[in-house]
């Protein structure tokens, strides 16, 4: 059976070149980067080279990069470390309503320790208005965090404008760029951000290799106390293979980003053009213009996301959904609800996210197998029966 992987937002494949760069550090190059001897120095040099490659991807200095084990850890580090580092000045945080759970739950954790928070709404396309961020700022605000792009709906946020609002009020600004880094050009100085999270498994690197950029001079408290690794800001022996993989993936992303975008956008746009033509009552979610290049997301009315995912999987297609049934907590997507969609529509959430190497034939296959899947599920949906009855057909 043809196998078509369209779940970039869950994980990207590991590039062979990245794996090859990592391989020695899973084998003979096992030294601890903190050791003085030759084995240690070899690991240390490789880690520092990776730090430079990663810094170059976002226009930072190597000393401003802190490696973490995941995007979630980077986000926890940013929210908790920055907020706690500034708490003498105030204890109020502003985040958008569509942030990843690692941001929202970090904020909730801080609320238990006396911080307060304001959630900034989004419009129907999932976009945060910088003016709303400005309105949410108080004298007590010490940190704002708004994601660079949302993985569920693909919308890219006006980060530079939000950063400017924060800078004018002398408030730190963090952006969770996990979904965007490696896929869209990000330059921390031009954007004006104080901190930025990214993860290699979103740009063809290994899982376990992620990082937080923190602008030089910004105070951040460590989440993991320990030794002197990462400038004393993140204790624990470095995950050398993952860091090497992350660094190599960053180098390749910087080199290939434009080519990847050029290849994926036309394929992605075919989904936007053809799916609503082949299937009635399909909503595009998120912005059509300010959007991740590999990302197409929809709500298919009258059917539920998990049932579509299972059916697609039977046809060899891997995709994602934000439906309540696909989440362990059986909770509808907070992103789609924040965008104003009702529960029934949000249940039909589906995300196709392309990867480097996705072909025309892959998209053809999806467009061929998907409409009959929707048709089959709709024919057993009481909501669809109701819709047909109301329409009088």
């Amino acid at each position: 059976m043809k196998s078509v992987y369209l779940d970039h937002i869950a994980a990207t494949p590991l590039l062979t070149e990245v794996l090859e760069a990592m391989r020695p550090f899973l084998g003979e190059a096992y030294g601890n980067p903190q050791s003085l001897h030759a084995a240690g120095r070899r690991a240390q040099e490789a880690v520092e080279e990776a730090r430079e490659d990663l810094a170059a991807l976002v226009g930072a200095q190597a000393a401003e990069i802190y490696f973490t084990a995941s995007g979630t850890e980077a986000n926890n580090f940013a929210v908790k470390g920055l907020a706690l580092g500034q708490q003498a000045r105030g204890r109020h945080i502003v985040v958008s309503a569509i942030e990843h759970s690692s941001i929202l739950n970090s904020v909730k954790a801080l609320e238990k320790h006396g911080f307060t928070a304001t959630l900034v709404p989004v419009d129907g396309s999932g976009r945060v208005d910088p003016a709303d961020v400005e309105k949410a700022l108080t004298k007590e605000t010490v940190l704002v965090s708004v994601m660079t792009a949302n993985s569920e709906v693909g919308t890219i946020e006006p980060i530079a404008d939000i950063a400017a609002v924060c800078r004018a009020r002398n408030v730190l600004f963090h952006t969770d760029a996990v979904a965007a880094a490696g896929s869209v050009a990000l330059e921390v100085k031009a954007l004006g951000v104080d901190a930025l999270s990214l993860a290699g498994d979103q740009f063809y690197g290994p899982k376990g290799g992620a990082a937080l950029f923190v602008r030089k001079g910004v105070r951040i408290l460590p989440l993991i106390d320990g030794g002197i690794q990462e400038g004393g800001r993140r204790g624990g022996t470095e995950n050398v293979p993952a860091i090497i993989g992350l660094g190599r993936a960053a180098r390749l992303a910087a080199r290939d980003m434009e080519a990847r975008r050029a290849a994926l956008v036309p394929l992605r746009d075919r989904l936007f053009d053809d799916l609503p033509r082949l299937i009635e009552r399909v909503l595009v979610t998120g912005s059509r213009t300010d959007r991740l290049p590999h990302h197409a997301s929809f709500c298919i009315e009258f059917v539920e996301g998990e049932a579509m995912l299972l059916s697609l999987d039977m046809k060899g297609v891997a995709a994602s959904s934000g439906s309540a049934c696909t989440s362990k907590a059986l909770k509808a997507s907070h992103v789609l609800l924040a965008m104003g969609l009702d529960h029934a529509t949000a249940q039909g959430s589906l995300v196709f996210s392309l990867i480097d190497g996705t072909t025309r034939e892959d998209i053809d296959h999806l467009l061929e197998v998907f409409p009959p899947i929707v048709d089959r599920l709709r024919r057993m949906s009481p909501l669809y029966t109701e819709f047909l009855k109301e329409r009088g057909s």
Partner: protein
Amino acid sequence: MYSDKVMDHFANPRNVGVLADADGVGQVGNPVCGDMMTFYIKVENDRLSDVKFQTFGCGAAIAVSSMVSEMAKGRTLAEAMAITNDLVAEELGGLPKNKMHCSNLGADALHEAIKNFQDKRAGRAPDAKPAADQHEHEGESCACPYCDASLEKEDKTFCRACRVEFEECLACGGITKRGDEKCIHCGKPLGKAA
């Protein structure tokens, strides 16, 4: 995550459809929870001569509906009333714990259809409960909505695994973390009825 039997009933559901001349119709669930089931029955000599269903929901919800229809067809009303959600899950080779809570409502929908038939036969006005009220959660088959650990009947107020305290939603009967503003199942403010 699903048994082969669940996948079979999901891929090839039995008895899907609408009975235009049904003797009884039963509906449970709501789109907020993710699953809605409508059951249609035909009754002859106190036996279910035909059963059809329509389901909006996940793979488990579709498989459950299909299994219920198969278990019920040809049975007497009394036999059909004895089918429980737990028996259905058992017949399907088990369901993931978190799906026991929201998706395993097929037997309830069937029973609603039978009650609807009995009400009509007795000349009573059919029960006009809103769908959300029928979303009963049986304590013994309840799982923590946050970590999936199964909950005992007595600790519907607290999950020992992830140490979350619960509050029961008066609108849908689901459980949400105490102190949260809104029910995670139906979105209604906690502490308020529908």
